[in-house]
């Protein structure tokens, strides 16, 4: 669990909608941009990378929720645009399998897509700075930083959910008082997410995940670069 799948019903409707719109826009742009570079030839790659992400989620490394994500690997191999398509596919499928929320596929895609995007550019940057031999360090570092940033985005999203007091977290409907009387929830307690404790919680929970994902990303990219270097380096063209 190097990254958090937002479940259904936690975030307010407007935020969920915003996630969908953003995802739709980025998808449209990605498809538009890649059309020129032979999108058709990419379909097998999209398929296999998406499948790999899904399959890796079925291999729990440490029991329960811990699994790796491979989003940065997707970014490095597919490039940010195509990786976004792939991540959307993954999120849609795992949502169907009850793994993340179906209503928040949009938001989840934005968050994980950001990992791929940031991972790709950081990897390229580190490679140019540190040279081609640093492929392990470059990819590993890129992964860790990308995950930290994407988690921050997630915290940000959750923070955003507090902004509109009318729709506080969407937990209570439009009539807080009535609800409160009905179900005996003291209304002063429904202030929504405590952003500090939320951030603390996930930072602690995810820290180990980042490290693990960083190490695995480094080894996998190293492996691929030795066996099929063509899958990694000419990507920038």
């Amino acid at each position, binding site marked *: 669990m190097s990254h958090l799948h937002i479940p259904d019903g936690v975030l307010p409707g407007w935020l969920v909608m915003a996630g969908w719109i953003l995802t739709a826009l980025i998808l449209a742009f990605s498809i538009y941009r890649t059309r020129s570079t032979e999108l058709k030839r990419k379909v097998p790659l999209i*398929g296999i990378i998406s499948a790999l992400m899904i399959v890796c989620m079925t291999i729990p490394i440490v029991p329960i929720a811990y699994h790796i994500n491979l989003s940065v690997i997707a970014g490095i191999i597919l490039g940010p645009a195509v990786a976004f398509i792939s991540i959307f596919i993954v999120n849609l499928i795992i949502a169907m399998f009850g793994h993340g929320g179906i209503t928040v596929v949009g938001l989840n895609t934005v968050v994980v897509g950001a990992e791929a995007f940031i991972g790709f550019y950081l990897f390229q940057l580190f490679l140019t700075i540190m040279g081609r031999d640093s492929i392990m360090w470059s990819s590993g570092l890129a992964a860790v930083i990308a995950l930290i940033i994407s988690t921050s985005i997630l915290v940000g999203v959750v923070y955003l959910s507090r902004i509109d007091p009318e729709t506080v977290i969407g937990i209570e409907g439009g009539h807080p008082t009535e609800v409160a009387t009905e179900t005996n929830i003291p209304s002063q307690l429904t202030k929504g997410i405590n952003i500090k404790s939320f951030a603390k919680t996930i930072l602690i929970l995810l820290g180990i995940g980042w490290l693990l994902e960083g190490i695995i990303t480094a080894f996998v990219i190293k492996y691929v670069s030795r066996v099929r270097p063509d899958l990694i380096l000419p990507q920038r063209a």
Partner: protein
Amino acid sequence: MDVAIIDYYANHGTSFLHKAKALWKVVFTALVIASIILTNEFYMLLGIYITLVTIAVWTRLPVSRIITIAAYPAIFALIFAFAMWNGSWLKAGVIILKALTAALTMVLLIVTTPYPDVFNVLRPFLPRVIAEGLFVTYRSVFILLELTDELIKSLKVRGGLTRRKYIRNIRNFSSGIGLLLVKGFDYSEKFYGMMNVRGYSGRITTQGTKTSINRNDVLAIALGLLIFAITISTVIEKRFLEFGVYILACSAIALVISSIYQQFQN
């Protein structure tokens, strides 16, 4: 998330839900999900959850397994609930129940409907790359699952996964993932090439033949509408919430009767 098991259930079930057409099951799912989004009432959500469990019993699949599969998002919901903790158990319960109920709805759909059928319904709304990507991904998942199985066997018999040697294990495991990626890519490329050789022009499965709606479809839609109607009425008219207890009781009774009946059948 055990893809193979889910796929097996979807393809080997015999219940009314398995027999209903994918389109109407998707409608059912959409209605239930909408209900879950609309209501914020603990008892309402619990009622829906119990109803869904009842339907799970009707699918004649291992219910506990289905519930376990659908319990995964609860872990994340727990984190959110913890972060939002303000002393209200009910509120935490609502957050977790929402995640659980939504997940169970999706899982009910997916254990009774082969995934390609579901995405065939969505297909008209998706760009071609995504539709094709979804499809190739589905096949690739099964190719990879088989490869993964063999890979893990190889790693084990060659000493690659040893108790208590964590660093070594991670390293070997990563090599394994790299191997899967490279091999898997070769395979998907061949698979995609073969699709084209066999004449692919955008029709992977048969278009849903326009047969009339059957009993199973009607039942699926009716269930969806029922849940939606009750939920929406409580959202619009808060007074209906007084009946919350009865709704809960009804769903619980339905569950008990169904379970006993199912037990009896076996």
